[in-house]
């Protein structure tokens, strides 16, 4: 049978064998947590604790400012030793609350379990907001915003993203294998919130064990498990929706415009924690992997754990890394060192060796059209990149630069190693800046 998918895309080696068989381990507490206030899309939280104050696990330490914003919570119990700017994975220093753990790791007594039977939709959404739940796929968009579509946008299809198409990463895979109950509790809650008729969990066909397990767990439930073709970026929201429903999210629009909502399966688990147990989002599963780490692992880490601690827990490095990547190799961000903390969006820490880093010099475009074939948005990446690089923004925009999802397929396949997606990203930013200033 031909598996469902989208058109375009690439097949990079998935390299998941490093960690896909490793059960999730609890990461021991580090000597110090650095909890950034900015770790979701939208307005960053504002620190609400003072130096010297003792905090308990799950206590709010940063309050949300605005609708597209969520609070931040203490990852463990201990003492606040600093409230100051610290190096952040985004590349600058940003406000953070530094906590020295007391080793007790005791939960705040304020947290109340909820009875889903007696909660209204609004109460569920509010609990999700207070728990600081954001999209766990890496984009970190506040979940409560996605859960509150305007009343005229009826969601008929609810899709859960268990695709994990980024090479190397196995965190979601392990979540599905080890914690299907939590995920399915979240699925049921979100189905209730949206009142969706069709509920689909999309999983790439390279995770047959997860597909089989969830099929078994969902027997009798109104949840469809859909096996999808192994292709990058199968887990990108628009591509996943196209594969599942055959429909395209309109350019410049949102999934809800065609009656669809997409949530990551780990987000569903976090929603279950928040609603059923009143537990805020203070931990996540992160894959620490790559050829330069001694022992690749899937770790359950607390938010704010310094990367250096993760490296240590995984047996250290086998050699000086050529690149430190937060997230997957296709869309992750490089880091200068291990001094930054893991955030809610840290799905992976990838350590590449020098020899894994492509340092081929850029050559001229030979119009081989591989980027055109690979682009899942059906754009002409080479044309847009060329316009962007010459600051011909009107032309770039006319060739739909703003529709680029920055998946990196074009750069991956380019034999001339032209940094296409980087150029397009620059073009997009310049177009936006121009729009704002006019």
């Amino acid at each position: 049978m031909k598996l469902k998918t989208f058109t375009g895309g690439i097949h990079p080696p998935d390299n998941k064998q490093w960690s896909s068989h490793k059960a999730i381990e609890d990461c021991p507490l580090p000597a110090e947590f650095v909890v950034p206030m900015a770790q979701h899309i939208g307005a960053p939280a504002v620190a609400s604790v003072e130096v010297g104050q003792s905090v308990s696990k799950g206590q709010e330490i940063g309050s949300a400012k605005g609708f597209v914003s969520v609070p931040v919570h203490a990852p463990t119990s201990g003492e606040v030793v600093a409230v100051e700017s610290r190096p952040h994975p985004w590349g600058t220093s940003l406000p953070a609350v530094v906590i020295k753990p007391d080793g007790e790791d005791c939960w705040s007594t304020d947290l109340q379990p909820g009875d889903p039977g007696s909660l209204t939709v609004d109460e569920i959404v509010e609990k999700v907001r207070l728990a600081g739940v954001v999209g766990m796929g890496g984009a970190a968009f506040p979940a409560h915003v996605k859960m509150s579509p305007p009343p005229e946008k009826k969601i008929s299809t609810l899709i859960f993203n268990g695709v994990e198409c980024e090479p190397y990463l196995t965190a979601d895979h392990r979540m599905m294998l080890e914690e299907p109950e939590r995920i399915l509790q979240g699925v049921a809650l979100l189905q209730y919130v949206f009142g969706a008729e069709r509920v689909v969990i999309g999983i790439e066909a390279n995770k047959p064990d997860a597909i089989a397990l969830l099929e078994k767990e969902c027997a009798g439930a109104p949840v469809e498990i859909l096996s999808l073709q192994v292709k990058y970026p199968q887990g990108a929201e628009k591509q996943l929706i196209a594969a599942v429903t055959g429909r395209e999210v309109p350019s410049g629009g949102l999934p809800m415009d065609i009656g669809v909502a997409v949530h990551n399966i780990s987000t569903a688990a976090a929603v279950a924690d928040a609603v059923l147990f009143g537990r805020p989002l203070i931990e996540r599963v992160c894959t620490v992997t790559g050829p330069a780490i001694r022992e690749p692992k899937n770790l359950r880490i607390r938010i704010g754990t310094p990367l250096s601690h993760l490296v240590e827990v995984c047996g250290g490095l086998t050699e000086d890394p050529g690149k430190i990547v937060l997230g997957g190799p296709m869309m992750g961000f490089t880091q200068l060192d291990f001094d930054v903390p893991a955030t809610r969006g840290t799905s992976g820490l990838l350590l590449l060796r020098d020899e894994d880093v492509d340092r081929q010099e850029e050559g001229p475009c030979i119009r081989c059209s591989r980027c055109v074939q690979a682009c899942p948005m059906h754009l002409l990446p080479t044309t847009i990149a060329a316009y962007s690089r010459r600051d011909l923004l009107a032309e770039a925009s006319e060739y739909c630069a703003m529709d680029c999802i920055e998946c990196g397929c074009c750069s991956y396949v380019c034999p001339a190693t032209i940094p296409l997606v980087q150029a397009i990203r620059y073009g997009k930013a310049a177009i936006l800046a121009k729009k704002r200033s006019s």
Partner: protein
Amino acid sequence: MSKQLYLSSSPHIHSGDSTSKVMRAVLYSLLPACAVAVYFFGPAALTVLLIATLGCLATEVVCQRLMGQPVTIADGSAAITGVLLALNLPPSSPWWLTLLGAVIAIAIGKQVYGGLGSNPFNPALVARVVLLISFPVQMTTWSSPTPFGSGLDLVTTATPLGEWKNAVMLTGQMPPELQSGMADYFLGNMAGCIGEVSALALLLGAGYLFYKRILTWHIPATFVGTVVLFSSVFWLVNPDKYPNPLFHLLTGGLVLGAFYMATDMVTTPVSTKGMLFFGVGCGVLTVLIRLFGGYPEGVSFAILLMNAATPLIDRYSRPKTFGTSRQGVRS
């Protein structure tokens, strides 16, 4: 940490493919055709191949030195132009003609536009057409194939397409024996340019390029398909005057053109739809020039004309952007 780390924009992995790897594969794919050429035409073909290739490499070096640019002959593109140029010349080409072709191909066909990736026309074809128009005698002096060991010297003769054209011009009829040697035509046992004689050798190389995913079916299939369909129409109307589609397919430069010249990435459209247009255009023009033009052969002119149309095709064959109903343009 003890050493400098590499910071960069995503993605952090690459397919590992490179321009020079692509070019090298194309060179390998041309080896069977070169081998067959040397088998049928002997040292003459080898000389043309060597002069053309070395001439292109030397011209590239000289041009880049003169313009103060880094020398990039290692990327393999100039070598390909050289081999393709040789394959597009008669085996009896004098050395100066071949060398002149090499200089024209690289200097005028490629470097004046800015080098690799910027030339609008296929450089080897630019050279071939300039030579064909400037030196018609040398460029249409054909040798009959004399396989190694046959003990024969090169004998001047006409190509099957040329014979047909002459016959039709003189008598209005084509000689029937022309259409009986299909097996010879397929293997390469006929007069013609060095590289256009053996369809078999060219297809072997093309198969390798398909396997390496460097060649896609779009241009060759539409080009060949259009020639077959379009020439069939004429053949069915008047089989005495117009040759059958198989004759069109196996003689002259159609296979060489469709698989190696019309598929030159630099000078052809980038979208799938554009490639289909391009292939059909090449096919129609080839048949029209062959049947009604002044030259017996039309592949080179057809491809160059379509090269000129490539920017226009690119403009009007943009893929439909995901999530829009129109091609490209966003409101």
